[in-house]
């Protein structure tokens, strides 16, 4: 079983639109949405949820105001600027409070409070789902607003997708990855069979592709590159493919700039489902070239 991941570096280059088409073109795949904090693949695949689980990870501190002595030791020790003074409503005393949006759950305040006034509860950071779609099973997730540990949730989604592929004897796991190069992206690509980077011929797209190729090189993962909207700057599209080759990646085709992409999205369809078009031909050609490349990699 192979696991291929679609990433982009820069956001908004067309990762999810292309992945939705690939989902329609793949014949025996488990699909996974690894962009857990801004997941969109379900908007096209319209999943019917058959299993739903909570995602718990880490802890979060909260100070019981009535037990707080107001000594401020917690605020002095917190390295995340997550604790501030406030006024206790019952007696107007100065006490301390945790800003949940800044707490990283390290527990320093918990272990060092002289009054044991800090609770440290397990956090529910999101939920994950196994669903049926018209193009096969989908494992997807929803990170709760502003939550941490998105990397762990991405990891969990991939693990569940691989388990499902084994159970159902499917030979491919296709993952829609997150943008960027940080924690969730690293979680999306470590140990994968290969990566497709979707980029665009803009100065940002080229710049971010350079960083992502360094990352896939760092993890030694076979990498294909697709230039989306190539015709908004054909000359830069050429340069991007040359640079990709120089970095050890393989260009697998180009997709044109076409409003049909937005139109398909508005109908809840993948581009290749929305009728014949030159855009759909581009996407099919990329899928075929990518899969040929994928066959050759170990």
């Amino acid at each position, binding site marked *: 079983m192979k696991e291929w991941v679609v990433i982009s570096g820069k956001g*908004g*280059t067309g990762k999810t639109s292309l992945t939705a088409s690939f989902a329609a073109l793949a014949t025996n795949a488990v699909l996974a949405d690894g962009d857990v904090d801004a997941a969109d693949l379900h908007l096209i695949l319209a999943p019917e949820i058959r299993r739903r689980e909570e995602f718990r990870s880490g802890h979060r501190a909260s100070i019981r105001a009535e037990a707080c002595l107001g000594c401020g030791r917690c605020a002095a020790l917190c390295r*995340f600027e997550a604790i501030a003074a406030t006024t206790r409503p019952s007696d107007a005393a100065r006490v301390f409070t945790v800003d949940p949006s800044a707490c*990283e759950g390290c*527990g320093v305040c918990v272990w060092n409070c002289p009054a044991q006034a800090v609770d440290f509860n397990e956090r529910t950071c999101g939920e994950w789902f196994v669903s049926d779609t018209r193009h096969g099973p989908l494992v997807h997730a929803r990170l709760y607003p502003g939550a941490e540990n998105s990397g762990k949730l991405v990891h969990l989604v991939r693990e569940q997708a691989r388990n499902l592929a084994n159970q159902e004897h499917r030979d491919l796991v296709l993952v829609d990855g997150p943008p960027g190069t940080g924690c969730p992206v690293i979680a999306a690509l470590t140990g994968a069979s290969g990566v497709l980077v979707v980029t665009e011929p803009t100065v940002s797209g080229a710049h971010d592709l350079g960083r992502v190729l360094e990352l896939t090189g760092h993890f030694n993962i076979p990498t294909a590159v697709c230039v989306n909207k190539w015709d*908004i700057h054909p000359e830069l599209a050429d340069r991007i493919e040359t640079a990709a080759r120089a970095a050890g990646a393989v260009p697998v085709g180009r997709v044109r700039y076409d409003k049909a992409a937005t139109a398909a999205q508005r109908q809840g369809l993948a581009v290749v489902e929305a009728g014949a078009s030159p855009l759909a031909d581009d996407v099919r050609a990329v899928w075929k070239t990518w899969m040929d490349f994928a066959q050759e990699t170990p």
Partner: protein
Amino acid sequence: MNRSPVIAIASGKGGTGKTTVAIHLAAALLFHKRSVQYLDCDVEEPNGHLFLKPRIVSSETVGIPVPAVDAATCTSCGKCAEVCEFNAIARLKKPLVFPELCHGCGACALVCPVGAIHETPRAIGVVESGHAGSIAFAQGRLNIGEPMSLPLIRAVKAKRNPEAVALLDAPPGTACPVVATVRGADFVVLVTEPTPFGLHDLSLAVDTLLPMGVPLGIVVNRADGDLRVHDYCREHHLPLLAELPDDRRVAETYARGELLFDCLPEWRERFENLWTRIEEQL
């Protein structure tokens, strides 16, 4: 207001035009005779520099303090491993540290009964600062392969000069890097596009940011007559600050790394008006 405001530009969905809005807003502020600072907090993929082409005058390495265990002093009591919430210390005969998992909270050094742990910085990226014409500039660049971005985002924000309007270019998404960027801002501009993906991720971003108590306004980029974002703003009582029309010439100008004002002068007024609308909200 004595102190100049901090405005974060965020989006939920990537590629909706955050950086385009942030850099043109910076340029428009100069027309309003305001001093302005552009702080690129999208440390995984900082792009503002490609358009502003700043002169970088200083570069500082940013690190996380990670534990180093003095084996001679260590009594192998295991308290450091027990207290670490991030599994960054394994209890073997002597503690084994996994620096890339460490958040730098200092719990292990505090708990060690014999003072065998001291902390040394582990580099995660750099903060570069300088200026692009009259725009003060700073950006963070996360090292490749580095998962931990929050300390670098905080270091970029620490470059803030209270006398200038600060524009924070936020990372995409709705997870902790966005929260760390927006925290403490006076106003957030959310840039979206009128598509199902754009609206869905906008609503996730609003759900993330509203509980933080920061006032929000919406910019619709690539507007093409689809009114789904207008309807959403009305239902949720969010101000629609600007509509930027869909225009292939804009995509091509952006592709080349040029500023719109130079090629498409009618865009200057759009961003000046956007600033006026933001000021009304402050």
